[in-house]
């Protein structure tokens, strides 16, 4: 029976020869995770249910990344609860300040998740790991509690959608632009309950960092998971990093898709999502002139080394506009160190940006850059809902790192070309 990559990974985790969309299955979980918002609730549920042991102390990561370094007393209590649970159950993968990073950047970087895995995380952007050719999806705290105890979780097998990108993206067009374009085309529930499979020559030409950006935002179209089959780029990334045996799966030629979208990458411009939905997209060049108060470059979507290099490429020799605050947040300690060693921080500091410790922070209006009423931010993060970065009367525009850096310099939304940068595709 012909299957998609998502169906193959779910069949394997369920111990079945084959599965079909719509079936309810009980699947083995290779790895699970929670953060400082979701894990404390999961720990409460775990203990209320009377579970005494976790299924495998080395297959659970508790990552306090959202409000850390702890922003207030209540948050410090949540992290303390995670720390104590991790000690009690001997969890291998608890990472505190100084070691912690934004979870969906940290786990792939440490080689904790890899090709073929079935991963559940109590965070909606768990779908990021699909970029490794894994099945990864967000769940709530109660599901995480069950997974931590039993190593299993139930799923309804999703239908798959195929997104094929032909050709080669234009100058400065990144994975972020491709995914914003996709969400703009299909809407915030355009892939509800479905698997989003990304394929085609334009995807094959992307770095892992750009692929993570794409799969990260599958949830913003309602998708259950985003997935990109492994290729040479994936194998090179995983080699010497992934701590278990990878399993490489590929969609069969005759596999069934609920829909097949095919777009020419060269037709996709630099994109921006306007308030208050990620689907409210428009070409960045058409929004030139929209004034901004703050720019954030970071997050599980765009806080990796490639993103910081892109931002630095644009900022080099420029100053951030006098009316704009630019906050740069490397997603992990390793990204931070490499960025420092490469001299990227000199570029940011010369431009008069601030560089923060790794944290999710402002992405969800947590800390490290909250917006006041009437303020407008342009951010490389993934959501622009009402009040997402602060006051309900503030606004968030989403874009990739090139547009973010160019806009910080211009003081309004701008493309690199609009501030004088030039580069061939």
């Amino acid at each position, binding site marked *: 029976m012909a299957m998609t990559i998502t169906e193959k990974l779910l069949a394997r985790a369920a111990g079945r020869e084959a599965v079909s969309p719509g079936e309810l299955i009980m699947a083995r979980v290779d790895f699970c995770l929670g953060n400082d*918002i*979701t894990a404390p609730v999961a720990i409460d549920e775990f203990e209320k249910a009377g579970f005494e042991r976790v299924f495998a102390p080395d297959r659970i990561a508790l990552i306090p990344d959202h409000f850390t370094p702890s922003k207030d007393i*209540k948050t410090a209590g949540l992290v303390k609860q995670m720390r104590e649970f991790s000690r009690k159950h001997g969890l291998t993968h608890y990472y505190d300040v100084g070691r912690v990073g934004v979870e969906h950047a940290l786990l792939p970087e440490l080689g904790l998740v890899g090709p073929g895995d079935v991963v559940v995380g*109590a965070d909606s952007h768990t779908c990021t790991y699909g970029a490794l050719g894994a099945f990864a999806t967000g769940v709530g705290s*109660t599901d995480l509690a069950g997974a931590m105890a039993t190593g299993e979780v139930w799923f309804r097998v999703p239908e798959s959608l195929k997104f094929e990108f032909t050709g080669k993206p234009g100058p400065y067009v990144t994975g972020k632009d491709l995914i914003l374009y996709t969400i703009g085309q299909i809407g915030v*529930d355009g892939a509800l309950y479905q698997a989003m499979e990304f394929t085609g020559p334009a995807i094959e030409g992307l770095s892992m960092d750009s692929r993570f950006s794409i799969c990260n935002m599958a949830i913003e179209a309602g998708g259950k998971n985003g997935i990109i089959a492994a290729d040479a780029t994936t194998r090179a990334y995983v080699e010497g990093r992934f701590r278990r045996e990878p399993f490489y799966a590929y969609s069969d030629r005759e596999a069934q898709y609920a829909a097949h979208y095919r777009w020419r990458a060269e037709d996709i411009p630099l994109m921006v999502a306007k308030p208050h939905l990620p689907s409210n997209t428009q070409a960045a060049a058409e929004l030139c002139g929209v004034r901004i108060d703050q720019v954030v470059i970071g997050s599980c979507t765009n806080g990796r080394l490639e993103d910081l290099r892109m931002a630095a490429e644009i900022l080099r020799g420029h100053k951030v506009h006098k009316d704009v605050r630019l906050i740069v947040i490397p997603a992990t300690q390793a990204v931070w160190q490499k960025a420092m060693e490469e001299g990227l921080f000199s570029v940011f500091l010369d431009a008069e940006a601030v560089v923060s410790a790794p944290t999710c922070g402002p992405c969800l*209006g*947590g800390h490290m850059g909250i917006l006041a009423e009437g303020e407008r931010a342009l951010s490389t993060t993934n*959501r622009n809902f009402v009040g997402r970065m602060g006051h309900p009367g503030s606004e968030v525009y989403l874009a990739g790192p090139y547009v973010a850096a160019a806009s910080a310099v211009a003081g309004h939304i701008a493309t690199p070309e609009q501030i004088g940068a030039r580069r061939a595709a």
Partner: protein
Amino acid sequence: MSTLKGRVWTFGRDVDTDLIIAARYLNMKTPEELAAHVMEDADPEFASKVRPGDILVGKENFGCGSSREHAPMALKGAGIPVVIAKSFARIFYRNAFNTGLAILVAPEAVDGIREGDQIEVDLASGQIRNLTTGAEYQAEPLPEFMRALVAAGGCCRI
């Protein structure tokens, strides 16, 4: 238990989890604390206006966004027993049942119910009666095991 009667509050499409409970309150995790801020960024007065037993009616993609279980917890904490919508986002759907908040998919009911209407909902049959207008609607009935989850008050309480 399976028949609920209450006053309706209506919301639009794509009600996201940040609207249901803003992240600035996620340093808390009890239903009581969260209920004080439920739907705050959609309507700052909502928490003071809503009464136990009131019912929420949304349009498409209710609960989109984050995986925060605090969203159904906040609704339940405010005494809202059931949310009716045209469709629900996937993680919210799982979380609602896991925390014991009933949710029903009923597109026609959503189109026929106005804010302030009194409605009666039978979770077992999926029957929805608008007591204000007299109209009746049929939602997709809840599977037996999901009704058990709701009756128990959530997954970890069975």
